[in-house]
């Protein structure tokens, strides 16, 4: 039961940390525009060369065309295949891609395992032993799981090797960068060893996920700890789930905000609109910057200061 409690705690930390990160982004004050082109929700004709709506005469009189499809067409390959790295840093891509894709496949495996546990708990004949659905799901889990483990091991070993041997990367790496990779490698390696030790269809993982859903009910749940590698895989996976959102590795999902809220945030401020209301609110904030020319005293607002001359002028 101790393993399940650890997993529950780690999942709770993950959920809380992720929600906190997202909440913090959602409640940030509206910032000034800092987009960079190409902005992928522009029309496909403009995306092709990095153009914007500001290329149009009297653009403010026209409806801004935005293409969600354009964003998806860019983001999906970017997230799945790390396209930016392929284009700009090919040498690193060869190890970064298997690392990231291995992680994605493990996430997909967990989703399939949850499906498997759900169907089992449902108890329908549709999912009885030997049924087409069960055979298919078992097959998907095996393919996804093995694929993820193989790619993940190659990727984490490769990234570790590159970070260690490439002077350009090593010079800027701190102990925690190596720790993170070793930590992830520990999971991939222990899980791979576990599967290689007589569990090619991830039966242990299926039972463990079932146990997670049922609170470790002994009739349905795998009893963890049958092998050292199994223990290490469960413990490291649980801890990783909790650890990732606490580190820069949260870029896996925080990338959304980096792109949508900064790089592609080209929404113009229109009179009477929501952005204008948010800007007015910001202009009532009271800065405390210390340089003389700013003239901030903690009482004056941004609006007061922006409408005034630099302090040096008032000698």
């Amino acid at each position, binding site marked *: 039961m101790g393993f399940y409690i650890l997993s529950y705690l780690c999942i709770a930390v993950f959920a809380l940390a992720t929600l906190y990160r997202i909440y913090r982004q959602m409640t*940030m004050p509206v*910032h000034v525009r800092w987009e960079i082109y190409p902005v992928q929700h522009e029309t496909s004709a403009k995306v092709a060369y990095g153009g914007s709506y500001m290329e149009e005469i009297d653009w403010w009189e026209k409806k801004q065309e935005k293409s969600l499809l354009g964003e998806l067409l860019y983001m999906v390959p970017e997230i799945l295949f790390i396209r*930016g790295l392929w284009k700009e840093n090919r040498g690193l891509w060869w190890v970064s891609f298997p690392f990231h894709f291995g992680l994605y496949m493990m996430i997909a495996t967990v989703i399939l395992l949850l499906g498997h546990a759900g169907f089992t708990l449902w108890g329908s004949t549709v999912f009885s032993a030997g049924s087409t659905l069960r055979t298919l799901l078992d097959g998907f889990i095996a393919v996804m799981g093995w694929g993820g483990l193989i790619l993940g091991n190659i990727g984490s070993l490769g990234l570790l090797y590159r970070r260690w041997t490439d002077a350009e990367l090593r010079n800027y790496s701190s102990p925690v960068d190596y720790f993170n990779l070793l930590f992830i490698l520990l999971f991939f390696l222990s899980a791979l060893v576990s599967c290689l030790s007589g569990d090619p269809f991830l039966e242990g993982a299926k039972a463990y996920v079932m146990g997670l859903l049922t609170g470790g009910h002994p009739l349905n749940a795998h009893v963890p700890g049958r092998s050292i590698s199994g223990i290490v895989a469960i413990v490291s996976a649980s801890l990783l789930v909790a650890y990732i959102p606490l580190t820069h590795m949260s870029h896996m999902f925080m*990338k959304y905000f980096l792109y949508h809220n900064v790089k592609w945030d080209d929404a113009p401020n229109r009179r009477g609109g929501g952005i204008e209301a948010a800007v007015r609110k910001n202009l009532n904030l009271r800065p405390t910057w210390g340089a003389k020319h700013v003239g901030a005293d903690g009482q004056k607002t941004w609006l007061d200061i922006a409408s005034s001359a630099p302090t040096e002028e008032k000698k």
Partner: protein
Amino acid sequence: MNKPLNPSDLARPSECLCHIEPGELPPLPPPYEDFNQTAIPPLKPDKIKNIEASLDDTVAIGIPKPANKQEEEELVRRFLAGLQKLFEKNNNWTFLQPLMLSMEHCAKCQTCSDACPIYEMSGKKDIHRPMFRAEVLRRIYNKYLKPGGKITAKFTGDIDLNWTTIARLAELSYRCTLCRRCATVCPIGVDNGLINHEIRKLFSQEMGIAPKEIHDKGTVQHLRVGSTTGMTPAAAKDSMEFIQEEMEEITGSKVEVPWDVEGADILLLHNAGEMLAWPENVGAFAIIFQAAGLSWTLSSEAAGYDAVNYGLWYDDVQFSRVAVRHADIARRLKVKKIVVGECGHAHKALTVIADRLLTGDLNIPRESAMVTLEEIVLKGKIKLNPSRNNFPVTLHDPCNIVRAMGIVEPQRRILRKIAPKFREMTPHGVMNYCCGGGSGFAIMSGYNFAEWRNLVSSRKKFLQILEAFKDEPREVPKYVCAPCSNCKGAIRDIIGYYSAEERSRLYYGGLVELIVNAMADMKKPMIRFGDEPSWTS
């Protein structure tokens, strides 16, 4: 020899942390090989004895050394106070979210380094990696402002904080042109250029430290006198009268320059530097707008005849003051829109960044002159004879107009129509390289900074220009079209520094000059290559 430098080395005492030896810079092609062994001229000891000059071979700010230990400690304390304020909503709502996202998610993959022209052209010196200075700030923040930071720093990346660290970091923030090419290539979306911008802000807004060219002679003078050039409203009008006369020689007819016309459709904002350094640019706008029959005006009010906003590069407060001044002038003139002339940073400042600062009736529509000019040229509002521009032309893309605003094609469509020998640089558009004069560099020339700029930060652009014209014979005059005042300044300086007019017959200018040069009813050419007119009637 390249000795690797780590961000923590910034705190290490040394006379010069990063020195470039002759021959370390990427080679230039013939006939410029004689510059390949040129070194940055050494700083004069008597000029730098009282200022911080231990980062590299040049000085941008010239920060006075603290007189004693107490003063040093006070400066460190103020730095940390400023750093804290960067992460506070009331102090930095303008950039809080972009800053936090970039501070927290860098994977240190170094993809950004190869995209940076200064890193490449410095001979790949570590201090010029875009993430180097960002990593210094991250380490200081994590160690000195986060709870338990002094313990976790041993694992996450350590750095000592002393006056040397701070003063070098201030200088280092003026070795990046804020072109943001690094941000374009980051797979995660991290913007190390933005972090550099925030470092500059910290020093200016909290400690009052900024290069005098962009603060004292820049924004402060702009707000006090009316222009960063020092030009008063009366002087601006005088200059325009002179320019009018010059233009009338070209057109052979009267050129009107409307001032302070209430209710005009367009308020045209020029970089006032054009009136002094490139008066033909300002004159060309007048000729084109008059010929196209536009309703437009200039403003003679202080700051209304100078579109620049140097605050964009280093100080949100100064930025806001200038932007509000510009918008207020347009509001009182009751114009329908502001058109920003050929000035890249003024484009971004007033159109994009100030967009979330100006509210209510200050939020007057702003448009790029590239767009206005495209409408005139492509809709046939002026009569053109493109064969008058029958010389090789290439286009420099100002980062602030192209990468930061997505205004890429209007200027190209114009050039394709009026310049039969137009060719692109490689790469161009949103992946262009900075002229090397961005973020204030073009107007900074204290100590030996101008030499550093010509040898290092503008080097990539020079190579690109040479490459664009490599198939043209030496004796053929070639025109670099740079629709931005700062870019023109940087390109003027590299042409002069490398004697490229004599060696390659390189000339430069704006877009409007090319348009007027191709106007069918002009009596004289606007563009001359030295003493040689670009066309004869």
